[in-house]
C-alpha cells in the first residue's frame, strides 16, 4: 500500500507538466481544412431553414450559410457535413467541437453570447415569436389564450419568452415541452395542445407542411425579438472572422447588385464601383487578410447566390412558406439588413 501511495505522489507531482499538452487547439480553420469538410450544425428539420429535399439533400436559409462558408474555404459549397442538432443539444455540440459552426435558427441573446461562450457573427434572419392556433379554437388574439395548453420547444428562448409573456399578462397556461420540430407538429396536429408557439417564420414554415394549412392561423401578436444568426465557439477570432464575412458577403452582394448569374461577368473586368471589385477580388486582396483565396467571395456568390436570392429560393413569397421580406429587406429598402463595407 505504501508503494502505491508513493507512486501516486510521484504522479501528482508530474501532473502540471503534462497539463499544458492536452488543452484544445484553437485553430479551427486548420482543422476544417485538414478534415476536408466543414461540420455545420443545422436544424433537424424546419422547412425553409434546414430540411432535406426529395433527393435527401439538405436545403434552406441556414444550410446556405454553411454552404457559403464551405465555398469560401474550399471553393466548393458541397464540402459540408451537415449535423442536425436539437434546440437543447446545439450549444454543447458547438462547445465540444462536434460542429465547427452553428447555423440553426439560433437567437442571439446576451447570456448565450457571453456566459455560454458562443460568438454570434451576425444576423441572417430577423424574427419574432408568435402563436399559431387552429381556426376552430375561435381565438383572434394572444390575449385570449388564458388557460390554454401550449406546445413549446425546449432549450429555446421561446420557452422563456412565453413564460415571461403569460406572467406579465397575468394569464396561466400549461406548457407541453417538446424536443424536436417533428414531434411538436405531431402533438399540435393531434390536439395535445391548443397553441403552438415559436418563431413566426418557423410557424409559417410548419404551417406550410400541414395537411390542411388553411385550418390554422398565426395570431398577429409578436411577443419578442428573435434575431437569428450563425454562431461559432468563443476564442478563435480568425475563424469567427471567416464566418462573419461570409455572411456579410451575401448581404453586400445583394446591396451591390451582384448575383449568382452576373458575378462571373462582373469579375471579368474592373467595375466603376470599387467595392464590387474588392468583393469579387479583382482589386486588392481581402481574401489574404482572412487566410482565404482572392476570389473567396466570388465563389460564395456564384455557388449560393446573394442574400436576396437565398431568401426568395427558400422562404420567399413564391415558396409554400410565403414570407415577405419585411424587416429582412436591405436597409436601403426599409429593412434591417446592413453589412459593414468591404474595404
Amino acid at each position: 500500500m505504501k508503494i502505491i501511495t508513493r507512486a501516486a505522489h510521484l504522479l501528482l507531482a508530474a501532473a502540471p507538466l503534462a497539463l499544458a499538452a492536452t488543452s484544445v487547439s484553437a485553430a479551427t480553420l486548420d482543422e476544417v481544412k485538414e478534415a476536408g469538410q466543414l461540420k455545420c450544425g443545422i436544424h433537424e428539420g424546419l422547412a425553409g431553414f434546414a430540411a432535406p429535399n426529395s433527393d435527401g439533400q439538405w436545403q434552406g436559409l441556414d444550410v446556405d450559410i454553411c454552404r457559403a462558408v464551405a465555398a469560401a474555404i474550399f471553393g466548393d459549397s458541397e464540402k459540408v457535413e451537415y449535423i442536425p442538432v436539437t434546440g437543447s443539444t446545439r450549444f454543447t455540440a458547438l462547445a465540444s467541437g462536434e460542429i465547427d459552426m452553428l447555423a440553426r435558427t439560433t437567437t442571439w441573446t446576451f447570456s448565450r453570447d457571453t456566459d455560454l461562450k458562443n460568438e454570434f457573427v451576425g444576423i441572417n434572419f430577423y424574427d419574432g415569436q408568435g402563436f399559431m392556433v387552429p381556426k376552430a379554437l375561435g381565438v383572434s388574439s394572444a390575449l385570449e389564450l388564458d388557460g390554454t395548453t401550449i406546445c413549446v420547444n425546449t432549450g429555446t428562448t421561446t420557452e422563456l419568452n412565453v413564460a415571461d409573456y403569460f406572467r406579465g399578462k397575468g394569464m396561466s397556461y400549461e406548457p407541453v415541452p417538446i424536443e424536436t420540430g417533428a414531434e411538436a407538429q405531431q402533438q399540435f396536429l393531434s390536439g395535445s395542445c391548443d397553441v403552438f408557439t415559436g418563431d413566426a417564420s418557423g410557424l409559417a414554415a410548419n404551417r406550410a407542411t400541414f395537411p390542411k394549412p388553411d385550418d390554422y392561423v398565426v395570431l398577429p401578436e409578436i411577443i419578442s425579438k428573435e434575431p437569428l444568426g450563425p454562431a461559432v465557439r468563443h476564442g478563435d477570432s480568425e475563424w469567427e472572422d471567416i464566418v462573419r464575412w461570409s455572411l456579410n458577403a451575401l448581404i453586400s452582394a445583394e446591396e451591390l447588385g451582384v448575383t449568382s448569374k452576373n458575378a462571373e461577368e462582373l469579375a471579368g473586368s474592373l467595375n466603376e464601383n470599387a467595392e464590387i471589385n474588392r468583393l469579387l477580388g479583382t482589386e486588392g486582396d481581402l481574401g489574404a487578410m482572412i487566410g482565404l483565396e482572392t476570389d473567396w467571395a466570388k465563389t460564395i456568390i456564384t455557388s449560393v447566390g446573394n442574400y436576396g436570392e437565398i431568401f426568395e429560393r427558400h422562404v420567399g413569397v413564391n415558396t409554400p412558406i410565403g414570407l415577405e421580406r419585411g424587416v429582412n429587406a436591405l436597409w436601403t429598402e426599409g429593412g434591417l439588413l446592413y453589412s459593414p463595407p468591404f474595404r
Partner: protein
Amino acid sequence: MGFIPTSPRRSFHIGQLVYDTRYRAKTVQVIAAITIVAAFWWLGANIVGNLNALGKDFNLAFLNAPAGYDINQKLIAYDNRMSHGRAALVGILNTLLVSFLGCIAATIIGVFVGVLRLSDNWVINRLAAVYVEAFRSVPLLLWIVFIFAILSEALPQPRDFRGETATASMQLFDSVAITARGAYVPRVAFTNSISGNETVVPRDGVSAVASGPTDWALILAVMVLSVGVVILLRRHAARVQQRTGRRPTIWPWQALLIVVPTGLVLYFLGATIVQPYLKGFNFTEGTFVRKSLLALWLALSLYTAAFIAEIVRGGILSVSTGQREAALALGLRPNKVMRLVILPQAMRVIIPPLISNYLSLAKNSSLALAVGYMDARATLGGITINQTGRELEGMLLLGIFYLILSFLISGAINFYNRSMQLKER
C-alpha cells in the same frame, strides 16, 4: 577438489519483480495503481484544460439564478421566477413519482404474470409468455413512444366533449375524463380545510373547497394510529391463541378501528369529491394525470414487469416440488400453498435480482425526455443546462442524484431482503 557450498545470495535483481512470487503481487498492484491514477489524472487534466480553453469555470452559482421557464407537472410550489435549484428539485420529485408508481405497478403486474406463466392452462400460460417476450425483446424507448402515440391519436380532445354534438363523453358516471392530453380524475378536497389556501368553488351552487398538506397529514396520522392499534390487537389475539389454543374473533373490531376514526376526521374536515368539468379550453378541477406521465408510467411498468415475471417464475420453480406436495398432503388448498409455503421460500431467490430491476426502472425513467415528461433529466439535465451552459456541473449533479437514488433503492430492498432471509442461528 572440494565442493564448497555457497550460501544463498541475498541480493535483489530486477527480474524478481516478475518471477518471484514474493514481489509479483506488489508489482501488479503498483502497475494497476499507476494506470488508474494516470487515467483519472488524464481525464481531470482534459476537463481543466478544455474548460480553460473555452474560458469557462466550474461554478454552481447558477443554481440560485432565476430559472425563467415553466414546468407543467409540479408536486411543490414553483413558478418561473424561482431558481434553477428549485426547478431541479421539481424535476427530481417528478422522477421519484414516476419511479415509485412504476416500481409498484411493475411488481404487481410482474408477480401476476409470473404466476400465470406457470399456469397449467395452456391459453393463459401462452398469453403470459407472449406478453413477456413482446415487452422484453423490444427497446423501452420504442414502447414509450408507441404508447404515447396511441394515447395521442386514439383519445378524444377536450373540445370533443363540448356542445350539443359532443363526440366524446366522460367515463364512470361523468367523473373521469380521458382525453388526448391525459386523464382528469376526481380529487378529494375539504369544505372545512384547516390549511388549504387555494379556496375554489368547483361549480355554481357548490360550497367552496380547499386542500392543504396539514389536512392530509392529519388524515395520515389518524390512519397510522388506527393501524398501530390494530397491530396491538392482533398481537393480543395471538397471545390468547398461544395460551388457550383458540383465537378470539377480532375482525369486526379491526374493521371498526380502521373505518371509524378516519371516517370521523374526513367528516369533520368536510371531505368532498370534486369532479372535473369542462371550462374554457380545457377540463378544470379534479386531478390532471398528464399524458406524458401516463405513457411513461405504463411503458416503464409493462417493460420492467416482463423481467420481473421471469424472476418470479424462476423463484417459484426454485422451490422443490416436495414442498408443494408436502403442503398439499397436509390438506392446504392450492392458493394457501402458494401464499404460505411456496412464495415465502421463493422470495429469497426473487428479491436480489428484483433490486436491479427497480434500479433500472428508476434510471430508465430518464427516457422521459422522449415524451416531454419533466423529470430531473429534463429540468436540471435539460433546460437548465441549456439556458445556463453549465453542462459539466449539471451532468455531475444529475449523476450524483441518480447515484443516491440507486443507493437508497438498493438499501431499502436489501433491508427487506435481510428480514426475509433464513435466520441462521
